[in-house]
């Protein structure tokens, strides 16, 4: 997002007590708005509506609301202070009579419970939050907002310490289902695009984050921390090239032991999970040491590598992806590989599997043995004409 030109003018109004500025942020990861506002020195309260309970389908959107809570202008002329003063700031508005209300229907009991749990519950309740949305969505499977919000809840669980395998893909599935109900909902589409192919991005999304941190630090301040770091998909640049890749596959022979998920738990998510012929998707493949057996990375040997074998006609932006070892010898972090895949223009409808495998050096238990292992990862995708 670029900073609107009226931002400087609002500082003076707010300081003079003429108007109160208030933000409502609609992101999946709302704490990123805190970093953004710190960077741009926007000092106003911000409410969070990740579920889009207000059912606003486009951002940014600005309202001028009078002292009685009545909407007086949409897109007020913030860049024309005299006009705003004449039409809003200096106007004595009359309250409405009691019959006026908004046209929003109250949610039913299941939806209300889900919305309450999401807003006021913490991540220790995340399973109950997800279940509440699933219940509400199964009551009315054609309710687009119910589907979208169920996806928001699944993605929140994916980002929590209580993540279940497949939560991210389920989130994407629900967002895609919401879009089949209303293909024009901009906010729902943005949620998929955020994690989806770079070429599909209408604007850079989170390219501003590194710049913001640098500039905040240069002022001598500590940049606000992010609960969820933007992943590779969330930066728009550089655009991928689906060029022929001459890279050779990493060698794998019989001496390399297989890992069936005992040591490293692999999770793959495709955004979107369904593509039209000729369209692309972004694969997110995460590798996490299995805490149950105290598995951990050992970084004294080679980096983790991932190799994909696209079927004939399928293109990828990279066939070999490397995740560099961190400096410390032992670590436990999730390692994520992202790459883009494009379906052939003549692909037929149905399920397709794109095979790949990872190679990594992993250790068992605290003083246990460390071995180079390989794990097969099958990327499951649906083609739909």
């Amino acid at each position, binding site marked *: *997002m670029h900073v609107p030109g009226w931002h400087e003018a*609002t500082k003076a109004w707010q300081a003079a007590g*003429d*108007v*109160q*500025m*208030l*933000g*409502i*942020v*609609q*992101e999946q990861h709302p*704490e*990123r*708005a805190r970093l*953004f506002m710190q960077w741009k020195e926007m000092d106003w*309260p911000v*409410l*969070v*509506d990740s579920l889009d*309970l*207000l*059912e*606003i*389908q*486009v*951002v*940014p*959107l*600005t*309202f*001028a*609301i*009078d*002292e*009685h*809570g*009545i*909407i*007086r*202008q*949409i897109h*007020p002329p*913030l860049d024309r202070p005299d006009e705003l003063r004449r*039409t*809003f*700031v200096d106007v004595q508005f009359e309250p*409405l009579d009691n019959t*006026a*209300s*908004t*046209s*929003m229907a109250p949610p039913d009991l299941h939806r209300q419970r889900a919305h309450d749990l999401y*807003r*006021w519950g*913490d991540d220790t309740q995340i399973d109950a939050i997800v279940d509440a949305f699933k219940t509400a969505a199964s009551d009315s499977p054609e309710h687009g907002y119910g589907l979208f919000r169920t996806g928001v809840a699944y993605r929140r669980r994916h980002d929590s310490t209580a993540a279940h395998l497949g939560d991210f893909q389920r989130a994407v599935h629900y967002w895609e289902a919401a879009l089949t109900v209303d293909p*024009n909902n901009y906010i729902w589409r*943005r949620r998929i695009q955020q994690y989806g192919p770079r070429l599909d991005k209408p604007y*850079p*999304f989170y390219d501003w984050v590194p710049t913001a941190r640098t500039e905040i630090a240069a002022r001598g301040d500590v940049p606000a921390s992010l609960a969820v770091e933007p992943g590779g998909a969330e930066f728009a640049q550089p655009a991928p090239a689906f060029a022929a890749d001459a890279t050779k596959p990493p060698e794998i022979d019989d001496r390399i032991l297989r890992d069936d998920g005992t040591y490293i738990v692999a999770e793959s998510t495709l955004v979107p999970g369904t593509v039209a012929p000729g369209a692309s998707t972004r694969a997110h493949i995460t590798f996490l040491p299995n805490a149950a057996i105290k598995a951990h990375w050992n970084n004294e040997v080679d980096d983790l590598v991932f190799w994909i074998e696209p079927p004939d006609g399928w293109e990828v932006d990279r066939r070999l992806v490397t995740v560099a070892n961190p400096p410390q010898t032992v670590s436990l972090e999730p390692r994520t590989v992202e790459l883009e895949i494009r379906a052939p223009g003549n692909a037929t409808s149905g399920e397709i599997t794109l095979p790949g495998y990872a190679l990594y050096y992993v250790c068992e238990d605290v003083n246990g043995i460390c071995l180079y292992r390989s794990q097969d990862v099958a990327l499951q995708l649906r083609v739909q004409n």
Partner: protein
Amino acid sequence: MTLRTVTLEILVMLLAFLPANGHAQQDQGGLQIGRPFPDIALPDLDGNRRSVADFRGHKLILHVFASW
């Protein structure tokens, strides 16, 4: 300001929005000029329960946005 100019202003505003998304009439949900802003409680960035209605008594500029 007459109703006619208000209507015209809204029309111009909506038309200005069309190239960006193509379905301006739905963008604001049930939120309309002359209606109260819905009294929906939302958490602030620190998790505290807040509502747009908490700001009654003030002229409010409400900016709905995403940092992308």
